[in-house]
């Protein structure tokens, strides 16, 4: 079988889709390509289908919240960890979305397996995946408020009870009163 030589993903993407790549970064030998949210399906499809790249396996979709202070372009980052079985290398495609409009086009059109990964990101981080066939909550109950993995979502520790705050605590205890 004739396997084409591996291509540099950054150079290949720049040639095929100029302006798609906003930034690149390498940390501990992991290459990250940063793109705009609306480019996600085009870039992922290009990386999957181009001979010499063939990133054919979607390992993970990992959202991250940079709340409260950040030097990133926006509050939420969404990373697509893709893997090429042919060339045995990994790549992270990352995009940033703002808090008031956390919308990324869906990747389920490229990998059907992105379905639950996106549902979980939606459930836990409140990212909206535009065009997703069935964007319901996955792990939390359907009527749950908020998105637990956001950094401003409290862990829910019990407040330590002292004599001065005992009444305040009793007010919001769940057991029946009187």
């Amino acid at each position, binding site marked *: 079988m004739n396997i084409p030589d591996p291509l540099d993903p950054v150079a290949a993407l720049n040639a095929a889709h100029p302006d798609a790549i906003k930034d690149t970064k390498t940390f501990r030998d*992991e290459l990250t390509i940063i793109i705009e949210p609306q480019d996600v399906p085009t870039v992922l499809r290009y990386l999957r289908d181009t001979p010499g790249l063939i990133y054919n396996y979607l*390992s*993970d979709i990992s959202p991250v*919240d940079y709340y409260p202070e950040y030097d990133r372009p926006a509050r939420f980052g969404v990373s697509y960890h893709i893997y090429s079985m042919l060339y045995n290398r990994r790549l992270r495609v990352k995009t940033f979305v703002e808090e008031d409009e956390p919308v990324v086009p869906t990747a389920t059109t490229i990998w*059907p397996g992105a379905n639950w990964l996106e549902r979980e990101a939606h459930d836990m981080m409140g990212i909206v995946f535009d065009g997703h066939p069935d964007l319901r909550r996955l792990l*939390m109950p359907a009527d749950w408020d908020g998105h637990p993995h956001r950094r401003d979502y409290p862990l829910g520790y019990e407040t330590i009870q002292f004599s001065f705050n005992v009444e305040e605590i009793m007010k919001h205890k769940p057991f029946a009163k009187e």
Partner: protein
Amino acid sequence: MAEMTAPTTGPTTDMSQWQGSLDELRGLVSDRAMTGETMLLNMGPHHPSTHGVLRLLLELDGEEVVSCLPDVGFLHTGIEKNIESKTYEKGVTLTDRMDYLAPMSNNMAFNLAVEKLVDLDVPPRGQVIRVICLELTRIQSHLVWLGTHAIDMGAMSVFLYCFRERERILDMFEMLSGQRMMGSYFRPGGVWRDLRPEFLPALEDFLDYFPAKIEDYEKLLTSNPLWLDRTQGVGIIEPDVALAWGVSGPSLRGSGVNWDIRKAMPYSGYENYEFNVPLGEHGDVYDRYIIRIQEMRESLKIIRQAIDNLPDGPFRSENRKFVPPPRTELGQSMEAVIHHFKLWTEGFSAPDDEVFVAIESPRGEIGCYIHGTGGTMPRKVRFKTPSFMHIQAIPVMSEGHMIADLVGIIGSVDIVLGDCDR
């Protein structure tokens, strides 16, 4: 009461107490379910053959599965969220509890990610001890899988034999860490303590004892006509479909895709061991069974090589910026006291950046994504777990099959709900 279409065919039921609405299922099940032509059936979350708390909403046409909607989240414990408020070393304890049948694999993924994030090396002895533990974990996880899978299919005795052998492995884990299952034995920089003197003899005993037991399981199942009838040609998944759905590990190799992260991207010195990666060709339940049986043999080979080449030296990194000093040093060195205090109260800092590490757990690819804050606690920890992807793929494998085969299919992809829900 919500409005709904009364069933026109099928069994008559008293719908006067019905509170919900079928409308929310529109688009998820076929339209025939709306008229009552097919039956909607809840399987689980307390069904024994779902290996935990998995609920499947099945749409059945007679005995045939028309559609299958997995519902997960019953075992969600917020482990990823909790690690965000723990130092990196304390986070290890929680990772044990995700995939409770392969705790060491979770430890490994988390520790590798932490080590990569802070650029910490593991000494050779620590790496070899880790490999021994990982392969023992693989065997014990496959034993639980084989036992429960066989009992689902009606073969009771295999279950008892498997658990008998598994107990020996758990005893060895207890020698290492003091705990049978949730040992938290791997720590950033190596392992918690050195091998106990009684461990290696026990392991040698096990290596002599276990190969014959694998033969026994194979005698009971591999060419058993009942087993062949139930497993061959059932739950077929084509290689390209499996890849698209994110299936990994033995379930992917059952379809003939040669991808084992231990070979593809070796970690912890796996490149130094000689072993085969068994592959299937049909992608059915039977192939996935054969592969796991073979993997147990390959694991024994790896353990054999690891014992023969076990190096001397430290079992954990001696970089005191990340690894607390042993207790014996505390009485003699002020420096050690300072390091001990700093590491156990504050912990070590990691850069404000991200890493993704994936390893081959008994079930498949388990990936760990860690984003540091520059401080001592992570900003985000995320685990990509194989069971999560496999449960998602169950409908692909099961549609069109009989409901009795569904039980075999769920068993064959080896799911653990703690692994899925985290």
